[in-house]
């Protein structure tokens, strides 16, 4: 019986020595950060925070003064290290910076190209309160500008950007949400290279960073996802445009939902009508072959989907027509894959992880390749693409055939 008080005391004392989410802090003493950007100015890091103003977001509470207030506020600090920059932030904020809800991290192209991301990753992986699931984004201009843009429908723009990425990743396989932890893993992987989507502002930035912007139905500027930045080790080496980022998606077996636009006939010109094929399910298999010292990558793509839209005049109930369409689609995919591969070779990044495949299947060949200065140049690819149009949705014949039939004599 008299062991009890000691036991309870022990249970209370033990947690004191357990490090972790310790120390109490009241909610109204925190400034909740929703987005962070990192720029470089001369020899200083410039860290910019987007801080949520809770009163402005949750209306109808005792806080008062909601509605006319900007939902977020932004402040920048600089320092020789990132931590120093953050330390300096406490000189100008009344509240403690709270990083656990930071959902995006925007790096400027300058930082990524010149400084590399090594130190940034180290900084964000180290403290317990930073989230490894935050999304990494690149921008070509000043990263802090992006935090100023107000996004219609959304109040916390940091979260909104994250939702834009999530949403477009679902509907458009070329976009990929790169989490901090995945990014760190890809950067460290010698046989792969990291890719990070670009975030850009199109339009008049100044106009969209004032609250008045939300009063008009048309936005002066919008934030949108753009190209794909490709890293070699921890440095940015180049950008892939839309078509090329689709090619990367094909090569790295990431296509889940993608629209392929193709002409009516194989040799169709620009004026030809176009059709859309929606990929529902696709798989890409990579395998390597060695023939006489030459390495060949076999890229087997098997795409299944739906014919979603057509402007062509053809009889879709005829299996031969369908087969013809499948051939054209395969050719379009093939084009994307080949041009992407050529681009990747020029910037010398192995985004789809070809070397990884070779390392696994032919370790000897990989050893030779690894010593080569430009290993990607010694690889040729052989795409084998099979497309299967599973159905044509609710109608069979193209609508244009109706116009054709019912023409007045």
């Amino acid at each position, binding site marked *: 019986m008299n062991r*009890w008080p000691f*036991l*309870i005391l022990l*249970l*209370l004392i*033990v*947690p*004191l020595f*357990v490090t972790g*989410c*310790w*120390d*109490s*802090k*009241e*909610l*109204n003493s*925190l400034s*909740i950060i*929703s987005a962070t950007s990192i720029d470089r100015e001369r020899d200083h890091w410039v860290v910019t925070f987007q801080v*949520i103003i*809770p*009163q402005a*977001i*949750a209306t109808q*509470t*005792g*806080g*008062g003064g909601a509605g006319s207030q900007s939902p977020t506020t932004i402040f920048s600090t600089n320092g020789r290290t990132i931590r120093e920059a953050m330390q300096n932030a406490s000189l100008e904020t009344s509240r403690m910076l*709270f990083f*656990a*809800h930071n*959902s995006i991290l925007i790096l400027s192209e300058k930082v990524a190209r010149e400084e590399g991301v090594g130190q940034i990753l180290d900084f964000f992986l180290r403290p317990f*309160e930073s*989230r490894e699931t935050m999304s990494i984004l690149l921008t070509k201009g000043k990263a802090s500008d992006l935090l100023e843009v107000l996004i219609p429908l959304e109040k*916390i723009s940091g*979260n909104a950007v994250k939702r834009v990425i999530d949403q477009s990743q679902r509907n458009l396989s070329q976009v990929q949400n790169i989490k901090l932890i995945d990014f760190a893993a890809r950067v460290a992987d010698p046989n792969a290279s990291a890719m990070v989507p670009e975030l850009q502002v199109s339009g008049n930035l100044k106009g969209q960073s004032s609250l008045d912007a939300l009063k008009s139905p048309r936005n002066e500027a919008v934030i949108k996802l753009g190209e794909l930045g490709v890293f070699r080790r921890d440095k940015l080496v180049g950008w892939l445009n839309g078509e090329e980022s689709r090619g990367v998606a094909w090569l790295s077996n990431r296509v889940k939902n993608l629209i392929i636009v193709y002409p009516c006939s194989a040799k169709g010109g620009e004026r030809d009508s176009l059709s859309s094929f929606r990929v529902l399910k696709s798989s890409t298999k990579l395998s390597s072959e060695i023939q006489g010292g030459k390495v060949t990558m076999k890229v087997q793509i098997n795409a299944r989907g739906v014919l979603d839209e057509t402007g062509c005049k053809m009889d879709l109930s005829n299996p031969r027509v369908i087969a013809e369409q499948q051939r054209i689609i395969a050719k379009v995919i093939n084009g994307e894959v080949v041009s992407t591969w050529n681009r990747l070779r020029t910037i010398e990044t192995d985004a789809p992880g070809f070397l990884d495949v070779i390392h696994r299947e032919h370790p000897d060949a990989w050893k030779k390749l690894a010593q080569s200065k430009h290993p990607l140049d010694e690889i040729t690819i052989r795409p084998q693409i099979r497309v299967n149009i599973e159905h044509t949705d609710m109608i069979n014949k193209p609508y244009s055939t109706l116009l054709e039939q019912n023409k007045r004599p």
Partner: protein
Amino acid sequence: MRPFTKNKQSGNPQPEACTQRSTESQAAETKLTGNLDDDLRIIKERTGGSSDLIIRLIDSMFGKELRIAVIYIEGLVNEQVMNSSVMPSLTAKDFIDPHHLAAPSEVLGMIKNRFLSISNVKDVHSLDEVLSAVLAGNTAILVSGATLGISASTAGGEQRGVNEPQSETVIRGPREGFTENLRTNTALIRRKIRNPDLWIESRKIGRISQTEVAVMYLRGIANDKVVQEILQRLDRIDTDSILESGYIEEFIQDEAFSPFPTMTNTERPDAIAGALLEGKVAILVDGSPFVLLAPVTIFKLFQSSEDYYQKFDIATFLRLLRVISFVVSMLLPSLYIAITTFHQQILPTTLLVSLAAQREGVPFPAFVEALAMEITFDVLREAGVRMPRAIGSAISIVGALVLGQAAVQAGLVSAAMVIIVAFTAIAGFVAPSVSISNSARILRFGFMILAGTLGLFGIMAGLIALLIHLCGLRSFGIPYLLPLAPFIPADQKDAFVRVPWWAMLRRPTLIGKKNPKREKKFQKPSPPKNKN
């Protein structure tokens, strides 16, 4: 002066040595003298000439020398029985042979065996017996010259009838509840179990109050050791009065300083009957409609008697709901404190922002805010219980409007906190037993302090300490966490879930192990098998 204690109901000899000793020492000095005037004078002296003690002297038809005294207390006896059965038998003339002079003891025997039309009649030998019989509502009849008297059972008087229990209401199930009268209560139970094996052992406890306490159990099902243990603990009680069963509970429970009750109480005879059939023991106290039940395990406290009357599926759902509600009412405010002051990172951003917006402008830390609101609620609750019905509506207006809405609008309390406190309060009322909801009510504050100082670690530490405590707790030798720790697979049928009645084949293992078989197997209803 220690009064006489007597085992009234059972034929068992009294196991208590101390009671017997007092019997012997008392008997010597208070024997009926046979001198009626002396005896009556002593009785009057002993009662201080209280105005409700009625002594009626009747000149007997056997002669002036043979007087009969009828002693009773007004209000404790049934006047109708007095007037129609007791008095006529003493005053009637037609059966008397006036020439035959009988000895006083013979007269007494005649009254007892021939005239008195009262079914329950006993001999009394001492003044103390006379007094205790009279104080129990019986009528004592003394005859001058006789050294013994008669006690006739005439108990009655004004009493509350059998009503629907106030504290435990059910939708489906019997509507009768216990009353303040012990006999009514034992009868209510006997009506449900018509079996000679339903035994009652009585004790008189309380040096001054002389309260009758009855221990009821089903012989052959109840564990004899538990019965003996309960009787021994009852005999050990030496106090001046037992005014309610709560006195007994505190005297005989296993762990004096546990927040959890190791005995439960109920107002429902059907709940007692069900428990007796599982092998438990009921303790009834005269003057209290709350009957104690032991031994009890923690899961029993989450069970309502209605669970057994409703379909098993909904009963199971409700049981799980009650366990969850108990946890909620114990932990919700502390979890809120811990999460909003220590672990903000585990909330989704939008929820955190909306909570932060509500906290904006609140001048107190979350812990102080929660503590103040919880105490406010307990004040409101206590006020609601104690105050007269007529001003009942005032409390809801003051409580809901002034303390809830106005506090939020004034920015003193965040709206989320009001929601938390309200939900905690409602969750606390789900428990079918008041005693278990009171445990949560006390523990809640402890957990809030732990959460305010150590966050979730504190809550976990508290929960671990609580678990250790519960594992060590016993109720009359039965582990408190019974079907779980020790784990008894067969008893899971009636812990978190309630299986259909045709599957409830055995009684609880440790409690009813003397006679485990409850019913025949294979009674699951199924469509008749047609051969054609």
